């Protein structure tokens, strides 16, 4: 893949096939059976998995497999204008395509008559949330100890000024000519998430697809690393709560438990 790079003007100086910085952590929540936190560019997304378990509404169940039920939700403060809480048509659709993509990754036939809930909370959105969510969600499923066929790795491809670029930023997404999120099962190379809108020329489509698939393989390496940190030879002995990145240069951690925890109220009360 030839890269044309910053001189031709990606707004954030990346080369055309460069992915934004990604931080990915597995096992970050106490209560969820499995969890992952991802920062991808300025996206900040938390995923928590519960299941397999019995839902309250029995009619949802499948006798031959588990139902993977993903709920994608954006925090009201995650976007420029405050988003009204509650589900909307966009999050309904994203929830559906994420549920379907993840169903391919889990050995759902091992857990008939159950539901596996994958809760995605977008705390900050900066283009590419569905790919970031899918990437984190399959790590969270693995963290939950579910038997899986594979992970799902995802990355979007965009069209900006007629050029195919990887992982478009918010500006590129808003003013670009197209956006194509791609998600694959890395071991088989099969595509399980594919959406697109905009305009892709007859010759561009295949090239864009190939670029997306290749990027997914890079994402897969990050997922493996995150799971290795948690489950590898030097595995984390407990839930790690990674710090969130602040958006200014100053240190955003104003009180930490690395320091001696202040024992508030102790003497005052006893």
């Amino acid at each position, binding site marked *: 893949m030839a890269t044309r790079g910053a001189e031709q003007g990606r707004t954030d100086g990346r080369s055309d096939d460069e992915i934004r910085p990604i931080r990915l952590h597995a096992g970050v929540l106490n209560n969820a059976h499995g969890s992952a936190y991802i920062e991808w560019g300025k996206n900040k997304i938390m995923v928590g998995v519960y299941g397999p378990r019995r839902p309250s509404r029995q*009619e*949802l*169940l*499948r*006798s*031959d497999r588990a139902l993977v039920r993903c709920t994608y939700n954006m925090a009201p403060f995650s976007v420029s204008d405050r988003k009204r809480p509650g589900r909307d*048509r*966009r999050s*309904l*659709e994203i*929830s*559906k*395509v994420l549920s*379907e*993509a993840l*169903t*391919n990754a889990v050995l759902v036939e091992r857990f008939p008559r159950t539901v596996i809930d994958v809760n995605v909370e977008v705390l900050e959105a900066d283009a590419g949330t569905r790919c970031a969510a899918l990437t984190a969600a399959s790590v969270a499923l693995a963290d939950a100890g579910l038997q899986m066929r594979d992970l799902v790795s995802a990355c979007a491809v965009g069209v900006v000024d007629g050029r195919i670029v990887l992982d478009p930023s918010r500006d590129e997404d808003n003013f670009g000519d*197209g956006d*194509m999120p791609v998600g694959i*099962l890395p071991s*088989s*190379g*099969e*595509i*399980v*998430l*594919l*959406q*697109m*809108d*905009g*305009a*892709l*020329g*007859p010759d561009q*489509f*295949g090239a864009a*697809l*190939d670029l997306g*698939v290749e990027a997914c393989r890079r994402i897969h390496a990050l997922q493996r690393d995150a799971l290795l940190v948690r489950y590898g030879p030097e595995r984390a002995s407990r839930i790690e709560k990674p710090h969130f990145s602040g958006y200014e240069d100053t240190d955003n951690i104003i009180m930490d438990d690395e320091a001696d925890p202040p024992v508030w109220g102790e003497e005052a009360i006893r």
Partner: protein
Amino acid sequence: MSRDPETIMRSQMVRDLIGTGRRRDHRSLGQMRPLVVETGIIAQADGSARVRLGGTELVVGVKLMPANPYPDHPDEGVMHTGIRLSPLASPSFDRDLDVEATEIARVVDRGIRHSGMIDMKRLCISPGERVWGLYLDIHVLDHDGNLFDASTLGIVLSLRGLAFPNSRFGMGEDSPVPLGEMPVTLTFAKVAGELILDPTAEEEGVSDGRITMTIDPRGWVRAVQLGGCGHFTPEEVKRAHQLARSSAEVVRGSLR
């Protein structure tokens, strides 16, 4: 959601047949079902069409009404695509279908919107104050699969000859809405490793995924959606793309 033995056997039969390149309705794998189209059927809509694609039947009605523009697009009209999966259209529509309906409406909407068939700036009446709202409503009456393709067809045919209803709103004489070329949506199901065009409900039920592409007259891809817990190799996706391009040409030619 449990499956009785008969259903399982029939599903296997459908799959086996397709594995040998045949389909239960005697179509070849890349063949669409017969199409019947009627337009101008709803006097109170600004445009309307009834589409029958094999056993699938739907009606589309289009309305134009003055509306407020979005603050971030003050000089563009607004467009809304809705779909009703009426319970009369299928025994399986006896439940909450928000998610299914939303996906279809949004995918079809993206294809129409990005194809450039409608220039949203031409729907502006007074920038920042008043624009035309274009309401595309799909009403499904019989569901035998592939609602995506039938919906796009219904909308495109309803839009043909559309006029701004200026007179109805005391804004002068009616005038034609300028339209670009029509997009065509093509859906393939993957069954027994084969891509089949225009799947029936039964074929959708046994498929390993669905891929939908909207193609504009220049052959550009305008919208894609993979669904139905689908898994496709990159080669299959590219093959679907090629098949969609050539099929779109044929459809477009037939309707002209």
